[in-house]
């Protein structure tokens, strides 16, 4: 049995009810979307689970603020959605096809993926590069940048993540995601997500995020700076990728060495930027 100490499994039908249960349960209560993390890691102290799937938080809506995805939307549902497929040349769908397996994606929710903050997460680096915002409910709704959640995730204690919002892409923007893993059903040895906006040939917005370093996706500010104001040419891409390699804080672990991860960072950033350059060129035609 997975969770031997679990006493209560609740399926609240309102957010307020869910929040009350979470607060009453204290440190022994957890909210779940698919519940994968809980079952896998079976923390022995968990006595109350609050399943969020009855709260109508499975939706994908386009509005003037951007693309809003409800927290209990599964990764499969996101892949299958027309609007998501069109977002920034399909970069989100392309990333999701590389995540885990269809079996796991049918169960995993976007809220769970963002909240569990697995260091090898592919979703988080891309959503950071896309400047996602998350909505937290603690009695009131609050919208914060996704980046504020990490690394401590202190915002999540006592509140429930209900939605993630991807902004309307400004014109002249392209994004890209790459990862390297040992097999096709594996977590990343290293992953990278980039977003660039180009105005009059020069980069005016640059986000370069590397994850699986082996730590959770985080920005590479030195590389971002190196690209700001520059043109996206082979030379600048090579230079920026080199800066990324030098500045990335990589470590050894079971899967790869710090040194090799630096090489992968270089290649990942290079390929991401090359893809962005190609996408922008396509867009101009």
């Amino acid at each position, binding site marked *: 049995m997975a969770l031997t100490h679990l006493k209560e499994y609740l399926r609240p039908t309102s957010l307020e009810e869910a929040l009350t249960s979470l607060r009453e349960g204290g440190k022994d209560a957890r909210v779940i979307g698919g*519940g994968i993390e809980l079952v896998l890691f079976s923390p022995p102290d968990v006595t109350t689970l609050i399943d969020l799937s009855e709260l109508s938080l499975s939706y994908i809506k386009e509005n003037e603020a951007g693309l809003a995805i409800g927290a209990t939307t599964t990764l499969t549902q996101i892949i299958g959605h027309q609007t998501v497929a069109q977002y920034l040349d399909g970069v989100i769908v392309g990333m999701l096809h590389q995540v885990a397996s269809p*079996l796991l994606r049918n169960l995993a929710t976007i809220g769970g993926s963002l909240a569990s903050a697995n260091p090898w997460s592919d979703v988080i680096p891309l959503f950071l590069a896309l400047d996602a915002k998350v909505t937290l409910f603690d009695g009131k709704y609050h919208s914060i940048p996704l980046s504020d959640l990490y690394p401590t995730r202190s915002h999540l204690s006592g509140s429930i993540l209900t939605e993630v919002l991807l902004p309307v892409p400004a014109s002249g923007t392209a994004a890209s995601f790459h990862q390297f893993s040992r097999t096709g*059903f594996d977590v990343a040895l290293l992953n990278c997500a980039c977003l660039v906006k180009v105005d009059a040939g020069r980069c005016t917005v640059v986000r370069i995020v590397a994850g699986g370093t082996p730590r959770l996706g985080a920005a590479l500010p030195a590389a971002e700076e190196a690209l700001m104001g520059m043109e996206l040419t082979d030379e600048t891409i090579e230079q920026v990728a080199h800066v990324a390699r030098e500045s990335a804080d990589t470590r050894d672990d079971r899967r790869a060495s710090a040194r090799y991860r630096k090489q992968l960072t270089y290649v990942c950033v290079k390929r991401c930027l090359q893809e962005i350059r190609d996408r922008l060129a396509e867009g101009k035609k």
Partner: protein
Amino acid sequence: MRITLTVNEAKRDVEIEPGGTLLELLRREGYKGVKKGCGSGDCGACAVLLDGRAVNSCLVLAAKADGRKVVTVEGLADDEGLHPVQQAFLEEGAIQCGYCTPGMVIAAVDLLTHNSSPSEAQIREGISGNLCRCTGYVKQIEAIKTAAKRMGEGADD
């Protein structure tokens, strides 16, 4: 706690521990076709359809299945015979030890239900969460192609 779920179209009213998994529940209730290979979502041998979507039942808490529909490999054949995926697996030599087969077939059924003419890459992705150590996947991929073709032809009738 008590839950009610539908398994292979039969309503089942069962007593469970809140922390137990759907895999444990199904095997306890006699659905031995659902296999345990790892208990951690890495091998796919435990795959069942939950409301029409293939999931690792070893990672689904049984309580989560309350009020929902489960289909196991035992529920795929009907009065007219085997499901086209099962039939194709049999004919193409895609079954060796058979331990990964139920989960693989469930994943393939999910794939073909939602994508009636998948490319080879899509088929490989569709069963990417199902590990097999016997066959090397070659004949399983062929079988799914065959099943897709047949299901497509059947749909035209």
